[in-house]
């Protein structure tokens, strides 16, 4: 599947590869230049991390990361959740999930991939950095929503959930 290259000729009467590139570049110019939502990606080094033999778990200090990478994305953060432990006895106000839209081309340019379980830091204010873990890396982009008119997928939707400091401390 990966080795064969098949030319995409869909909607070729009024849309071509050049059009796809143009649309994508315009979108990236808007997202990266005008919006400029910048985040930090912490990719877990799965080979160097010190994992438990039985569970494959690591402590906070035992996870190893590849060098952090800044990247741009379209960000949507859900309202905070007012939850509780112990049947309403221990109140917990947590940030909602963060959904990112990332251009595939942008990830290719940075030579990075966002995987399930990686951590993402989002600077909420000058002094506060929130950290999220990738719960859905959006790797499968076979639906029409992720394409331009059905031509080809051009972005990924990544869903992240908030993590506490005892799971990931960040920088």
């Amino acid at each position, binding site marked *: 599947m990966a080795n064969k290259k098949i030319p995409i000729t869909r909607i070729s009467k009024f849309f071509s590869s050049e059009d796809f590139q143009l649309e994508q570049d315009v979108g990236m110019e808007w997202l990266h230049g005008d919006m400029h939502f910048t985040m930090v990606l912490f990719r*877990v080094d799965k080979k160097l991390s010190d*994992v438990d033999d*039985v*569970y494959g778990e690591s402590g906070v200090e035992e996870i190893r990361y590849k060098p952090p990478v800044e990247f741009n994305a379209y960000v949507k953060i859900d309202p905070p959740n007012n939850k509780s432990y112990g049947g309403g006895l221990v109140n917990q106000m947590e940030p909602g999930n963060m959904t990112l839209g990332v251009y595939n081309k942008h990830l290719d340019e940075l030579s990075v991939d966002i995987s*399930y*379980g*990686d951590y993402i830091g989002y600077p909420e204010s000058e002094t506060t950095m929130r950290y999220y873990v*990738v719960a859905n890396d959006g*790797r499968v982009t076979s639906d029409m929503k992720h394409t331009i008119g059905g031509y080809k997928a051009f972005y990924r939707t990544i869903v992240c959930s908030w993590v506490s400091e005892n799971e990931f401390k960040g920088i």
Partner: protein
Amino acid sequence: MGIPKKIKKTLNISPEPIQGHYPTGYNGITTPYRRGELTDLITDDGTYLPKSVLHADLDGGMLEFTQNQLKTVTNGKKVNVIGRILTLQRWAEFSQTWKFANEDKNVELPFIVVVRKPDVQYGTNPALQYTIPNRKQFHYAKVPTWDGTRKGYDVYTIPQPVPVDIIYDVKIVCNRMRELNNFNRVVLQKFTSRQAYTFVKGHYIPIVLNSIGDESQIDTEERRYYQQNYQFQLQGFLLDEEEFEVKPAISRSLLMFGTDEKERKKEKRNMGKPNAKKVNNKLTFTGGVWAMTVPYNYKVNVSALRLKNVDSYSFTINGVSVDEPVMVNPGDTLQVTIVKQNPGISTLTLQETLVG
């Protein structure tokens, strides 16, 4: 007419024991050897104490059991087993399955996964029940010690292990019925006698097959696959080395007596069993007396035992001087003559030993 085939034509007239291990039949002695082997397994590569058996060890035992004892092969290819107990940590789950994942990072079918139920209940292992309160310590071993000067013993004690029941769901996910059949056959053959055993740090831990359930996705418009859930109960126990105790036993005893000197009692003269053949006869020589006679009606051997204020003494029988020890016959009269050291009372104790 030939001899029927069921009739045996040759018989072994010098049969050997059926069990070579027990040449003269089971004698009740060889069992401890096996116990010794089991103890060696428990303490192998370690101290004299058993090693801790905790939750992670039991989980590892179940995982190893699934990988080795429930190994399933389909079309000459081993069905992959996810080599970890899956937990909440997302990247860990991912990192352990990537070896047989496809381009979309999804696990390829068929595969087997072990999922532990997080709640661990108090155990039903029949050997371990609510029998002993308060974590009482029990003798496990006496280990000789040598500190360069003294020999001694350390006494190792451990409390009763805590029984635990852990429920595991071993799930097989596959596309073909024959893969299900193969795994089902392996499991049922293994659990024909209800339970099988995993081996955790020298201990045989029983595993019981609770139930077999089907969770297959056979919707009309969705992706179809088989998923069956084999629920096992591991009847283990927790043995925590933090609860072990090692205490030094007695290596040297110091015995001290306290006596009250104010109330002294006279020493008993005849300690132990009296000797009927020996009699002491104390002769007291007052101021001017220096000789005494003792008549005898029996044959005795006489000698002086203790002297007090006596410089020298001599014995005569019937006027004849004799040397010590003096053999006196019945009817003889022994005369004892002394020379005093100082004027006053003197005593001479004769020891008379009956002869014959």
